[in-house]
């Protein structure tokens, strides 16, 4: 098998199953009554946390690829991104159905009045176009440049996700701030990779240029 075939036939299905595990575990714990006394909160927490984790993994692929030169990493990015979307979709459904039980009046009030829900809901909405434009045909139809520009929304989505988490905790900010720090490193590395060539050019061209 070629490397492409290995990835397609072995590694991708394996990664898929691995990424599915947190959800399978949650379903198992729910079914066997191993969640806490407030299972709806547990489901909300778990799906929210995994949304952030999948977003961070998605964002880590490009810098990791540039550092290691492992271009094959790119082949996993769409899958991880779609897992982030699946997770946030479950998170949203849990809120609307299990938590609020379709009390639309309350839901609308929440989105308008509670900054952490406003930010979270906005990030969720921004993820929809990214999920919808994830298949090859649409990507081709859009053209690489436009696709890439649209998908840069993920920076704002991840930032929104961290803020959503930070604003909902009562006093213990350790976990949301940890995600914030990870995001800062990931976005910082992107900025560095983007600016480095320009800085190089500037420093090379600065010297010999006459006044």
């Amino acid at each position, binding site marked *: 098998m070629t490397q492409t075939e290995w990835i397609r036939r072995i590694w991708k299905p394996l990664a898929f199953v691995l990424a599915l595990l947190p959800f399978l575990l949650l379903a198992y714990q729910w079914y066997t009554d*191993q969640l*806490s*006394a*407030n299972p*709806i*909160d547990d489901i909300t927490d778990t799906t929210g946390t995994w949304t952030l984790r999948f977003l961070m993994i998605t964002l880590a692929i490009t810098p990791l690829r540039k550092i290691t030169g492992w271009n094959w990493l790119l082949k996993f990015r769409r899958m991880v991104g779609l897992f982030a979307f699946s997770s946030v979709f479950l998170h949203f459904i849990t809120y609307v159905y*299990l*938590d*609020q*039980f379709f*009390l639309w009046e*309350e839901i609308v*009030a*929440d989105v308008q*009045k*509670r*900054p*952490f829900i406003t930010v979270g809901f906005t990030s969720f909405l921004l993820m929809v176009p990214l999920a919808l434009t994830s298949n090859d045909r649409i990507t081709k139809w859009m053209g690489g440049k436009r696709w890439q520009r649209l998908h840069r929304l993920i920076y704002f989505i991840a930032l929104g996700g961290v803020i959503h988490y930070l*604003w*909902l905790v*009562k*006093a*213990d900010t*350790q976990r949301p701030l940890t995600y914030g720090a990870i995001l800062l490193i990931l976005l910082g590395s992107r900025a560095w990779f983007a600016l480095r060539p320009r800085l190089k050019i500037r420093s090379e061209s600065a010297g010999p240029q006459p006044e």
Partner: protein
Amino acid sequence: MLLKRQEDIRSSEITPESLYKNRRRFLKTAGIAAAGFASVSAFGLIGAGELPQNPQWKRPPAGPLNTDEDLTPFKDVTTYNNFYEFGTDKDDPSKNAGNFRVKPWKVAIEGEVRKPASYNLEDLVKPYKLEDRVYRHRCVEGWSMVIPWLGFPIADLIKKVQPTSKAKFVEFTTLHDPVQMPGQKRPVLDWPYVEALRMDEAMHPLAILVTGLYGSELPNQNGAPLRTVIPWKYGFKGCKSIVKIRFVEKEPKTTWNISAPYEYGFYSNVNPDVDHPRWSQKFERRIGEFRKRRTLMFNGYGDQVASLYSGMDLKKYF
């Protein structure tokens, strides 16, 4: 006199307490003896919070001091806790409070009282007849339980220690011991935890000092060995593992109020019309139920406590 008072302890309380202690001693010994035990417990097969329930306990008949609503199961009451001294996750207290030493325990009575003193807990509690109180418990986070506490009115203690006329508030302080309470190693809150009541609130017959639940000794994760319960206020107004009761003239600074003054007021009465700035307080999820229920004014104790706040703007004094 003393002998007569001791008779007040019902025989039903005695047997199970020893059962409970034996079981705990057994668990402790077994935990130390068998290394495997610890690993089993780490996987959650044996939760530290699953203390046995008093088998002889019977719930008291319904009345003004006892709701007849379905009780929240013992397991839920003892594994789903907010007790930041043992960690900020709901299952942290039941996991981390197992070795917390509640004996010996001293409680200092200080401030504007005629008889300031430090008491051994047994001596402090001995004069009072312990009563079952089945109360609704509403957490500021939006969930609720129905818990059969075991305790006595704070008023009884206040009458005994004789506050002076200067005493307008009573302040409760939790133990500060980061070695035993690992949650205090991080500055999540301004330790030690301090809570307070206006004197008339503390004197209300519904406001109790608690030493047990479900007819047994209070589990560590629920605030052993002594805590307050004020059922018409949000749960955090209850102070756990109390080491100091101080009578003061000025409104004390309380922990959550210090942490976020715009979110947690001094009064913190359960009020569906005053939202937490970040979430609605209109509804609550009763643990064990699927759909949320409407939150009641003063947690359903309005008939008994509303007069304490007559003429007060409850939106201002939230």
